[in-house]
């Protein structure tokens, strides 16, 4: 089926499935098949923030005083988060928009991806402040072995789905012989399966992969170090919690079969693969913790504790999407992190932040005698 930016089909959007129905035509929000996506949009918009609102200038002094192994922990996490948000800022749009069929979900996807671009911009804000040459950090993201390993496993599901969608749109269902002699078998069901696994992988990304970095950022801030960074990470964590809720909703709606009965069958078929996806990602994050602490731990956090936290959070997230726990751990080894993840304590009062709009149209107040030299009476 060909994608069109404005379908002339006089369809009833309330009867369309979330994905693989008619492309969305009228962006209308007066009626919704799934009001939850409209609520998510409103919540996300109410969360809007700008990196410049957070003063990170003290972090520069803190960073310079950190021992080398702690600088490594701090910078490596920023690199990893930059990778994650680089992927998340574009991929939901590229992969999911061509497939979506209801307006409230289409707009949610766009709102979601946009908020990820704010996160990416905030990393530049942080990095620019702590080092003289940000390129040394950004350039390493595509060179660093440890990061590349993760990039491959995260982007694979998106790339698979994007490629299969392209083939489906180009050739349609059935067996096709390509010019290069290759034969391809395209079915809508296998495309649906790729979508389901892609959403599962995105859920893993937002529900687990971010949390190792979050824990480190907040552990620094517990010692009153890198607090500007922690303020930003707290805002990012608030957004990510919303995003993971949205993928949990999509996955659970699919598994229920109320939206598309075939999706419920696929959810059952993918049960083992999805469980393995979570377990594998958790192991990869534990390896990341090992890499972070290779030259030494930081006060309040070490490899063992961080690995226990990964296992703990993985269990919580798996249960949310109807999968069995992968690990024995049942206690949160770092309960203090919850204070940082709680939105009760996110400061949003305008008087508490530097409102950047005040800077627009500012005037230069320093006047020198020379400035008046051209005046004659």
């Amino acid at each position: 089926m060909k994608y069109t930016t404005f379908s002339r089909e006089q369809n009833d959007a309330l009867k369309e499935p979330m994905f693989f129905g008619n492309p969305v035509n009228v962006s209308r929000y007066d009626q919704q098949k799934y009001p939850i996506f409209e609520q998510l949009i409103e919540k996300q918009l109410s969360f809007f923030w700008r990196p410049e609102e957070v003063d990170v200038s003290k972090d520069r002094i803190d960073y310079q005083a950190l021992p080398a192994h702690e600088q490594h922990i701090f910078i490596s996490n920023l690199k990893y988060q930059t990778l994650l948000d680089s992927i998340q800022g574009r991929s939901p749009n590229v992969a999911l928009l061509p497939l979506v069929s209801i307006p409230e979900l289409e707009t949610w996807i766009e709102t979601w991806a946009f908020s990820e671009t704010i996160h990416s911009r905030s990393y530049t804000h942080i990095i620019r402040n702590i080092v003289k040459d940000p390129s040394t950090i950004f350039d390493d993201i595509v060179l660093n072995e440890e990061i590349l390993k993760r990039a491959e496993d995260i982007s694979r599901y998106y790339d698979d789905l994007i490629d299969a969608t392209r083939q489906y749109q180009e050739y349609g269902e059935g067996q096709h012989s390509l010019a290069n002699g290759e034969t391809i078998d395209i079915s809508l069901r296998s495309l649906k399966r790729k979508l389901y696994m892609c959403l599962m992988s995105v859920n893993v990304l937002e529900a687990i992969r971010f949390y190792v970095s979050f824990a480190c950022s907040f552990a620094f801030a517990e010692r009153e170090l890198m607090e500007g960074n922690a303020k930003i990470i707290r805002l990012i964590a608030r957004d990510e919690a919303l995003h993971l809720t949205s993928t949990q909703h999509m996955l659970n709606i699919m598994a229920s079969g109320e939206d598309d009965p075939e999706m419920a069958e696929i959810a059952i078929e993918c049960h083992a693969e999805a469980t393995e996806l979570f377990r594998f990602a958790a192991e990869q994050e534990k390896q990341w913790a090992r890499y972070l602490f290779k030259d030494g731990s930081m006060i309040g956090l070490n490899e063992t504790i961080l690995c226990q936290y990964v296992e703990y959070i993985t269990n919580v997230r798996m249960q949310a999407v109807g999968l069995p726990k992968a690990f024995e751990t049942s206690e949160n080894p770092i309960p203090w992190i919850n204070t940082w993840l709680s939105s009760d304590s996110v400061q949003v009062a305008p008087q508490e932040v530097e409102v950047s709009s005040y800077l627009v149209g500012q005037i230069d107040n320093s006047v020198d005698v020379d400035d008046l030299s051209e005046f004659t009476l």
Partner: protein
Amino acid sequence: MTDKTDGKRPWVFIQGQQAFQFDPQQHDSLLEAMEAHKVAVHYECRSGYCGACRTTTLDGEVEYQHQPIAFIRKGEILPCCCTPTRDITLVRD
């Protein structure tokens, strides 16, 4: 266990054990009351959008101050943003 309480201070049962009485004068949410009574519960956002405090109930009823955004199945509640309206039994996993 009475099915209907006086509607003011419902009992909270955990795994069949009577745990505490919920006092709406003291606590704004079930989560706050659970913490005050040293019942371990996972939480993150405390505002109904992350779903981390999702808890299964065997019976009972709750009321939400605001409709939560997080996903919950039938029989599950989000203690961070609800209060029990009658006796309630929670399951610990």
